[in-house]
């Protein structure tokens, strides 16, 4: 009767399984304090000892099996996103996935491939192109859509094009509203999509933290923040009224770190712009702007210079500031991200106005 062996093994199990010693004691000896007593030199009958050893062996095997089936945090997030995507595919008549070419879209596309494998995702991708995206983004977009084998809808607000709307002539606010927000509404109306996937996350912004995974918009694409449907468990009410539509955010519960970690672990393709290299930029109002094509009118005295830069978010190149960085690999980027003390969207000119701006934009139909 090797009581020492019993106690040591029970302690080891407690350690590896994260259960307390008294929980294990309760299971093997029917007494939460039993193991502690034995450890302090207490005694027990041969019969008790034998049953305890047998139970302990069973718990050890079970723990070994269970832990081979352990799910990591990322695997849980992945499963949740897949569940949401399948629910939309099964319940909605005409869904679409909004693809904005950024890192979050890359993860969303990867999750869609997983969700329906070996089938192709049963919906098209759609990109609302403001015509001022980085050239690299457009190349990347077309290549990825072809590789995955999904239909790609590219929508450009032709009214905006006719009026020559652009960030330089009209300013960032008007440009974004016309080419992005209005363009998106046009596209959703044109194709009559009843559900549109978006890659937004709750950790991005304070009103996003309040938004449901299945988020409803009225016929004018407005979000009524104060009157959202209850959303319990993983049961999603996908029924829409005539004219209503849904935005679905399968990655609501992911954080920025989760996204990066997942990209790293799953080896997901993202545009090169996220990684640092020598690029031509000009410094304007304290922001580094990439000279992506000859549409960038250089101001007096502005001379493009080569700098090691990368982008923390991707949008329209005149509106997206580059950061100087030596981070040329993914782990470097993650490291840099973790060490910074300002939040991700800082680089975006559009979100830095005060207060409830994102909520307002959403109420006006911004995704």
């Amino acid at each position, binding site marked *: 009767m090797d009581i020492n062996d019993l106690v040591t093994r029970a302690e080891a199990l407690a350690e590896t399984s*994260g*259960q*307390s010693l008294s*929980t294990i004691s309760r299971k093997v000896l029917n007494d939460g304090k039993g193991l502690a007593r034995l450890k302090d030199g207490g005694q027990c009958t041969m019969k008790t000892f034998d049953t305890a050893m047998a139970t302990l062996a069973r718990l050890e095997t079970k723990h070994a*099996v*269970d832990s081979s*089936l352990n*799910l*990591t*945090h990322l695997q*849980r997030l*992945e*499963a949740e996103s*897949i569940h949401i995507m*399948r*629910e939309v595919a*099964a319940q909605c008549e005409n869904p679409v996935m909004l693809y904005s070419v950024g890192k979050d879209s890359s993860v969303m596309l990867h999750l869609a491939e*997983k969700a*329906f*494998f*070996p*089938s*192709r995702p049963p919906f098209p991708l759609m990109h609302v192109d403001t015509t001022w995206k980085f050239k690299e983004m457009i190349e990347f977009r077309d290549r990825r859509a072809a590789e995955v084998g999904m239909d790609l809808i590219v929508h450009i607000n032709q009214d905006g094009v006719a009026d020559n709307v652009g960030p330089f002539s009209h300013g960032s606010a008007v440009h974004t509203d016309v080419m992005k927000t209005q363009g998106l509404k046009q596209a959703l109306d044109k194709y009559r999509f009843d559900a549109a996937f978006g890659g937004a996350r*709750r*950790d991005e912004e*304070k*009103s996003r*933290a*309040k938004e*449901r995974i299945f988020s409803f918009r009225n016929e004018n694409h407005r979000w009524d*923040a*104060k009157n*959202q*449907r*209850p*959303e*319990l*468990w*993983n*049961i999603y*009410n996908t*029924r829409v*009224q005539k004219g*209503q539509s849904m935005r679905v955010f399968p990655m*609501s*519960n992911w954080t*920025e*770190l989760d996204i990066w970690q997942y990209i*790293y*672990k799953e080896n997901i393709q993202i545009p090169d712009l996220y990684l640092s290299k020598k690029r031509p930029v000009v410094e304007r109002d304290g922001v580094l702007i990439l000279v992506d094509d000859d549409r960038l009118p250089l101001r007096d005295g502005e001379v493009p210079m080569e700098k090691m830069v990368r982008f923390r978010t991707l949008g329209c190149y005149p509106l997206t500031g580059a950061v100087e960085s030596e981070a040329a690999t993914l*782990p470097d980027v*993650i*490291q840099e*991200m*973790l*060490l910074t*003390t*300002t939040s991700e969207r800082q680089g975006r000119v559009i979100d830095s106005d*005060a207060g*409830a701006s994102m909520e307002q934009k959403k109420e006006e139909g911004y995704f």
Partner: protein
Amino acid sequence: MSHLDDLISEDIIAYLDAQENKSFLRFITCGSVDDGKSTLIGRLLYDSKLIYEDQLAAIEKDSKKSGTQGDKVDLALLVDGLAAEREQGITIDVAYRFFSTDKRKFIVADTPGHEQYTRNMATGASTADVAILLIDCRYGVQVQTRRHAFIASLLGIKHVVCAINKMDLVDFDQKVYNDIEYEFREFSKDLGFSDITCIPMSALDGDNVTRGSERAEWYSGDHLLGYLENLDVDSADLDRPFRLPVQWVNRPNLDFRGFSGTVASGVINVGDEIMVVPSGKRSKVKSIVTYDGELDKAREDMAITLTLTDEIDISRGDVICKTDSPCEQADQFQAHVLWMTEKELFPGRQYIIKTANKSAAASITNIKHRVDVNDLSETAVKTLGLNEIGVCTIQTGAPFAFDPYRKNRNTGNFIIIDRASNETVGVGMLDFALRRAKNVHWQDLDVSKKVRAAQKHQKPVMLWFTGLSGSGKSTIANLVEKRLLDLGRHTYTLDGDNVRHGLNNDLGFTKADRIENIRRIAEVGKLMVDAGLITLTSFISPYAQERRMARELQGEGEFIEIFVDTPLEVAEARDVKGLYAKARAGEIKNFTGIDSEYQEPETAEIRINTVDMTADEAAETIVAYLTEHGYLEGAA
């Protein structure tokens, strides 16, 4: 995100590995209005250094503008993200926030305290493992405290922290704390929590949030974050029965047919025998397919695709189980319902019920009682109003595969959807089935007359009404059908109106046509009986031979002849449709009783004398006959 984790700068790869192995916990804050829920989350985020500089600067600015704490930072503003919330200083909807420590990752939902927004609290609670229930120590246990505790318990939350907050306002008086702890434990002793931990706290100042408190030196327990990091949440018990609610059938081409869904509980291995509920079909797992390659086994919470060794019919809404412990199925349930809309719940109204993978029409047939959140007492009520909780019986239009909610949080729950507005108007947790579909999943039955009848819980039979024109056949048949419908039976009536205009519109009233008319009706009626229906036919059917033919088409005991015996003089005197007058005037040829004969039945099972009996009494007599002869006794 300045995790003070040295690994970030020293060895980022090792840091990422460490992240992957962290455990994970979801919790909520709840409790009455203004008890400090949002402040507590703000404090947790702030003290775990999860706030970016720019976010903090924004909050400091906002605190001056709309904060409630004078010059101090109002930490609630970190979570109250909607404009209306900041203006009013309250929480309206649940906020989801994320943070992690070296041991664990957390998703926290900050829920609103106002009664009006209870449904948002329930939204947050439905996915939580732990509820932190805040109590303002100046006011003690409030109605909302009780309501939230009760909802948390209904939703199956097992671990509760009772955070007795704002202790700074009572100088950390231990007696105040003890009294509240006693009151709360008394109230919640029947709520089924597996553990309740009480902590004296100041969310505002940070006492016992992420560090201990000198001001509460009499308290020896752990601070909140310590508790959350070390809590032993029964990590999914993988010994539970396997359930895969089928969400989507995966058919990329003719050679592949997979069933996709998220495993609701248990473990499945390649080669395991499975059974589909409700169909009862059986097969074996051929493969577990994922994008990352095939697996040998899969567990609870994984989103997978199964293929089977047999080509069996499975669709969305079915639940794949292992044969050793299939789930139940039923179409009548008792459930706890939380009502979430101003429009009251009325028994009898039609709604849509949706589980994780299936929707169907349903009605609440009865509200057994409402539960009073104050003392958990039961009151008989006719309706449920906003935020009220009741025990109800529910009838669904199709059978659901399910487990009782207390056994399985993933297969025992549903939401209630309003058919007109499509809003989610309530949620429910299944207690048990009121009427089980017997035997169905133990044998893989071929769909037969018997199975169809069993599904409808009745013995199909043909009620053949015969009698003169105007004798009262249709009136009585309609009354009988209504009675049967009230009794929950499935019926159909064939009569001149629905047959003559369609199926038989090529037939006239000659003898040959009359015979053909009856033959077709008998054949159609036979199909309906085969479909499991109680089928009523209401035709003059004047010839004995055709009635015999109709009888012989049906199986033993499935044909009941009902002679509606009204003498010609009486029928003619009534002449409801004026047909006798026309026939006498020679405007209608071959009219039964006038210039065409009616052969009175001699072996009718039921004879109705309409001179002595009202139509209601006649219907009563027929239903009584059916009851006595066992036609209405549940499954065949």
